[in-house]
């Protein structure tokens, strides 16, 4: 991405993050506790986490081992939460 367009891309990512946050809140307001909804909410959080890691932290443009620690952390946390909530 050309430096000129980076602020625009970041603004787009920000808009997506805000939208997904509002969706998460609305799901919470339904007060329906089902496994599917819980996993949907966490899947949304995972997408938001990847966007922050890749775009805000700029790890998406890092090549090599430093590209992965935050993404691996997100995946491990997701696996543990998935297993615990579906137990």
């Amino acid at each position, binding site marked *: 991405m050309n430096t000129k367009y980076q602020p625009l891309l*970041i603004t787009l990512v920000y808009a997506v993050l805000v939208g997904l946050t509002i969706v998460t809140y609305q799901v919470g307001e339904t007060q329906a506790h089902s496994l599917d909804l819980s996993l949907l909410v966490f899947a949304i959080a995972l997408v938001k*986490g990847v966007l*922050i890691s890749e775009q805000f*932290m700029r790890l998406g443009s890092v090549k090599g081992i430093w590209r992965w620690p935050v993404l691996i952390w997100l995946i491990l946390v997701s696996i543990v939460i998935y297993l*615990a909530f579906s137990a």
Partner: protein
Amino acid sequence: MTKVIKYPPGDLALWIFIIAELLVFGLFFAAYAITRIDNIELFEFYQQNLDRRAALWNTLALISSSYFVVQAVLAIKRMRQQQAFVFMLLALLMGFVFMVIKTQEFAHHIDMGITLSTNTFYMFYLSMAFFHYLHVALGLIILAVLAVNLYKGRYNIENIDGLESGASYWHMVDLVWIILFPLVYVM
């Protein structure tokens, strides 16, 4: 094309610190989720007592703050010192909004007589939320230092490590809240 780099933005030592912090928060999240297995009704009942609307505003405040920090870094790369300073002030403002809302939430819990020993849910909620709150407080001090340095024109395209290190720490604080919010307030 996006320039491919070998190391993450900022100081590598700071990144080791960030990974260590993420591991600690990861253990908190895992412990919460595993403890919940045998206490589902308790967790779901007390979760409803939390102020989900306040958590929504807090999430939006932290995301906005992170966004302004990214824009401040990009402004420096485009040699727009004054714009970077304004973005950093906005990031600070959003961080303070988080602190004010969260402080009110804690004050409400204290008024209700809720403590770490009230029950297992509150033990986890208060521990995780307060641990994160301390990180936000430290992050705000870092952002304030960055703002002063930006005001004095200390960062430029050749000297940006300090700014990127502080920015990376702040994004970590945001990232942790992105997981904490749905896990504790919604799921």
